[in-house]
């Protein structure tokens, strides 16, 4: 395994549950050392992809490798270097947090217990109570500790921030950033867009089982539709602003112009400079909007 190779590589990875589609022809590469966000609404195929990589379910088509190892043939070797957090986390309710971690530690071996303690206290983890008595958020924290505890090469986290309060979410983001600094690779699925925006280097968007696009955050944003509001000193002629490339939905109300811009603002700003500009309000696109853009494009293509 050299340092440059892909941690995950799938080619035409397909999973049907009987006739029901899970994912179809997903070509995915996750590079070593990056934080990869896997974004999509519920039921899009995020968990299916993850469970295929972990060999809990077997693909009906295509193939996948993790660390360059085939997921079907080398799942145990792959699991050795993976930290996994389940989407709908279910833990052994009859164990205490401490017992659970000890059990998992024994199954893996070679655990640095000081590190585990540090991790548990950072996440403010309740370790002495029976898991069945813990709140959803406290279980989730335990789930995170067990995913990180053996310092795995590759973290696979399915909807990791579910049920965490904002303070713990911040701590989680710090953990992710530290993991990247340590050279660990992270694959994080989410339907919460600001989350992936915050911590991910690249994002794959999946919808109805198909990977729509994989881009860096920057590129995604540049594709984004930006809402712009320009206030002028006096009334302006609407026709001057129509037909500028990338500018749509122009609305002029007296001395105010509102429009949506895709990509560069250059031409629009230059045209606006011909008038006396009082104020420019730009609404930074959230990934939510980017997301919707890709969705709509995709929908339009289908139609």
């Amino acid at each position, binding site marked *: 395994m050299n340092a440059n190779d892909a941690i995950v590589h799938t080619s035409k990875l397909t999973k049907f*549950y009987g006739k029901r589609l899970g994912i179809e022809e997903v070509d995915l590469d996750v590079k070593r050392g990056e934080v990869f966000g896997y974004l999509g609404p519920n039921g899009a195929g995020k968990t299916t992809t993850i469970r295929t990589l972990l060999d809990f*379910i*077997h693909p009906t088509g295509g193939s996948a490798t993790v660390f360059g190892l085939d997921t079907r043939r080398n799942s*145990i070797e792959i*699991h050795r270097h993976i930290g996994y957090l389940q989407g*709908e986390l279910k833990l052994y309710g009859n164990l205490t947090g401490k*017992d659970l971690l*000890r059990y998992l530690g024994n199954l893996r071996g070679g655990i640095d217990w000081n590190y585990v303690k540090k991790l548990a206290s950072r996440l403010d983890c309740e370790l002495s109570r029976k898991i069945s008595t813990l709140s959803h958020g406290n279980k989730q924290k335990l789930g995170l500790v067990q995913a990180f505890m053996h310092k795995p090469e590759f973290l696979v986290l399915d909807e990791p921030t579910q049920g965490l309060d904002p303070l713990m979410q911040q701590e989680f983001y710090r953990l992710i950033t530290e993991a990247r600094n340590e050279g660990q690779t992270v694959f994080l699925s989410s339907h919460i867009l600001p989350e992936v925006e915050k911590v991910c280097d690249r994002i794959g968007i999946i919808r109805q089982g198909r990977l729509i696009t994989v881009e860096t955050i920057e590129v995604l944003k540049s594709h984004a539709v930006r809402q712009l509001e320009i206030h002028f000193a006096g009334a302006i002629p609407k026709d001057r602003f129509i037909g500028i490339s990338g500018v749509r939905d122009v609305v002029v109300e007296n001395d105010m112009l509102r429009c949506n811009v895709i990509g560069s603002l250059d031409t629009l700003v230059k045209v606006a400079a011909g008038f006396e500009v009082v104020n420019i309000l730009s609404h930074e696109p959230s990934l939510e909007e980017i997301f919707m853009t890709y969705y709509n494009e995709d929908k339009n293509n289908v139609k």
Partner: protein
Amino acid sequence: MLNNVFLKTLRDQGRSLLFWGIGLVAMAVIMAFVYPTIKNMPSVTQYLEELPASVKEMFGAGIIDYTSPVGYFSTELFSFMMPLLLLIFGIGFGVSAIAGEEEKGTLDFLLSNPVPRWLVVVEKFGVMIVSMALLAFVFWASLAICVSALGIEISLLKLAEATIGALMLALVFATFSLFLGCLKGDRGLSLGISGGLAVLTYLLNTLGSIVNWLKDYRFLSPFYHYMQPDTLKNGIDAGHMLVFLGLIVVFFVISIPVFERRDIAV
């Protein structure tokens, strides 16, 4: 107790084993203490003697003789109650071992560790054997103590052999339910099929003893191989024991590839 899947599973069985153990001991003690009284009740033995042969047959190898300890314990304990209890425990465990953990959603979690699927099946099967053997042993030990204390004349070795027979019978169905759980992670389905099969094969054996056209098919029932040798009287019969052993091995061995090959349900 949390070193591996085997010990963790055994630990989870702790409370259940305790209560099942208490139940089996209570049954052994009560049956043993009641015997001297029943033996001296002429009305009971007379009533039993007057039962039609076919009814007697249904209660175990044709002998219902409460005046002898062997007859009494064969009928009252070993022909029905004792194997039934072991059977219920065994099927319950077999069903929960894989399918139960899968329905709870913890199987994903467990298998995300570097633990191969086949090893999980082996370790759970191991716990099944150990805990059922433990229950059988506790039952035998308490019965042995009681009959010795009461001066009932019966061979402790034969009691042990009959207990082993019941254990093997129960293991056949328990392993079958484990296999069903490996085949499909549906607890209700495994429970229904294993339980239903136990009832059907029990009926096949007992009805087969009275209904002529069923006679030739009795050998298909594990209960036939359990009742036929009349173990408490004659000791273990190697041939019938091998049938049990064969069935257990077959169900266990095919459990592994079917579990390795299938998808784990979420």
